[in-house]
């Protein structure tokens, strides 16, 4: 690639990116850069949704960071994210291995299987919350309680016990997200050459050994990418939580995104919400940097 000398004509020719990129840059400026700048600006004010006037101050930052509720919210968010990542990774891998095996041995039922799991993923988040609110209905006719009654676990307070409610939103989130994790890992499995497994078998390796010494190391980059993508989508989730628990009981399932929403639209504190949005931005930034490093080390970008 040869760098050309600067010349105004070349800025708008059709072999330069300017015109091609113009619509994208306009959208990015109006709907990302400007709002990001505004969020930063509001975070150092005392702006409220109810009053048009505000002053610049660092007190909002101090108040939000000094509020014990924030740490409770962060702890709940961390548990929600960590449990979702682990479960989606493990379940996604398990199903991907099964689907991949079914493909190689031409067992029937693979596409049907994949369709069912992906159906959960394409559903609107709100509807997922509603479906699980119905399943986890605490009355004896709720599906979860009906199924668990024979094992003596009837009448569980799925949504009104603080700890169980956190378990419930995690289950619903895993139900939603496992499909995506499965698809990524299935693609990864398909790219592992069959010869590796054949060679291992000739050497007398057991199925478990070839899983541990071939599959896992070969999948490592995809597993890492997956961890980041699951973390981001879980962090940004709150549509599913609203119909399921509404963040309750109390604030037992109020994750960071929902908390940010509540601060702005229930407490009308635009500045407080902006501070929380800055925290969310910083987390996404850190995750993006990690993602970029991974893609780079794979030579993809």
């Amino acid at each position, binding site marked *: 690639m040869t*760098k050309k000398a600067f010349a105004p004509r070349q800025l708008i020719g*059709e*072999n*330069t*990116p300017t*015109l*091609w*990129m113009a*619509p*994208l840059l306009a*959208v*990015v400026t109006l*709907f*990302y850069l400007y*709002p990001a700048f*505004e969020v930063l600006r*509001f975070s150092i004010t005392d702006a409220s*949704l109810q009053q048009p006037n505000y002053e610049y101050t660092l007190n909002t930052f101090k108040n939000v960071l000094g509020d014990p509720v924030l740490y409770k919210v962060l702890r709940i968010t961390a548990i929600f994210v960590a449990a979702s990542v682990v479960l989606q990774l493990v379940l996604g891998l398990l*199903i991907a291995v099964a689907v991949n095996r079914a493909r190689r*041995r031409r*067992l029937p*039922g693979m596409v049907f*299987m*994949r*369709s*069912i*799991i992906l*159906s*959960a993923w*394409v*559903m*609107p*988040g*709100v*509807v997922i919350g509603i*479906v699980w*609110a*119905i*399943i986890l209905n605490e009355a004896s*006719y709720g599906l979860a309680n*009906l199924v668990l009654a024979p094992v003596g676990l009837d009448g569980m307070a799925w949504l009104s016990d603080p700890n169980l409610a956190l378990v419930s939103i995690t289950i619903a989130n895993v*139900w939603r997200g496992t499909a995506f994790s499965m*698809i990524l890992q299935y*693609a990864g499995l398909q790219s592992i050459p069959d010869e590796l497994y054949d060679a291992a*078998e000739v050497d*007398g390796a057991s199925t478990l050994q070839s899983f541990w010494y071939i599959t896992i190391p070969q999948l490592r980059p*995809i597993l890492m*990418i997956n961890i980041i993508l699951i973390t981001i989508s879980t*962090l*940004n989730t*709150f*549509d599913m939580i609203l119909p399921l628990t509404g963040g309750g009981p109390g604030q037992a399932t109020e994750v960071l995104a929902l908390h*940010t929403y509540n601060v702005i*639209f229930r407490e009308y504190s635009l500045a407080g*919400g902006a501070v929380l949005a800055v925290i*969310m931005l910083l987390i996404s*930034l850190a995750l993006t940097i990690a993602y*970029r490093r991974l*893609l780079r080390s794979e030579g*993809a970008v």
Partner: protein
Amino acid sequence: MKSRKVRGRIGDLLTYLVFAVALVFFGGPLLWVLSLSIRTQQEVYITSLRLIPETPTLENYVEVLTTAQFSVFLINSLKLSVAGSIGALVVAAPAAYAFSRLDFRGNSALLIGVLALQMISPLVVIIPLYRYFARLNLLDSHLSTSMVYIAILVPLATWMLKGFFDGIPPALDEAAMVDGCTRFGAFRRVVLPLILPGLTSVFVLTAILAWGEFIVPYILLSKPSLLPISIGILNFQGNYAQTSTQVVAAGGVLAMLPAIATFVILQRFIVRALTSGAIKG
């Protein structure tokens, strides 16, 4: 050491065991909601696992579509999804073409920048936009809402389309340009028709994502006649959940059906687009 054949059989058995468990966990809730949606009020309270009710009824669907305005919500969702996805394609296609074909300083840095946008929660951008739109009198408008939809879908569309452009040899555009086409002409007449399957995949995937979009319409729209299904059903659940689970279930089925049906019919396109977007970029 076990023979190869026996090992294969045991493996098959385990494979189907995983399938069976996954099927119950992922399919079970869907079947249950479907079953509830065709029950009468009395049969909701039956404490048995029977899926097909004694007196199946479509009453719940009729109620949801007529009295609860679900048909309006569904049409609104369709409008917003289609507008958002088409808009995203129009904005993303030329940019993705430039990312794929043009050598310019900062190409890969910009591309990573676009990826970073995808990581940002729509909640973050919608906070200042709410205030901004309120001042411009643009709240409660499908026009401004679909603009934000476009903005949210554009990063994914750009990344995926770049992957599809990369799959077309640049020699084709060059040949067209030798034959007297401008680069834009080559893009429009030669390359775009070739990636039609790619455009379709991206359109379908973004439309499905837009169908489920929640935060943006939740904050920007409040008039009931403008709400998409994702918001409509939430308000509806708030009013009905206590008294009539079966009606909420019917609403849920109607809200999920378009996305699931589109997906199942077109899944071959989508699954491929999905993996190439996330892994190869």
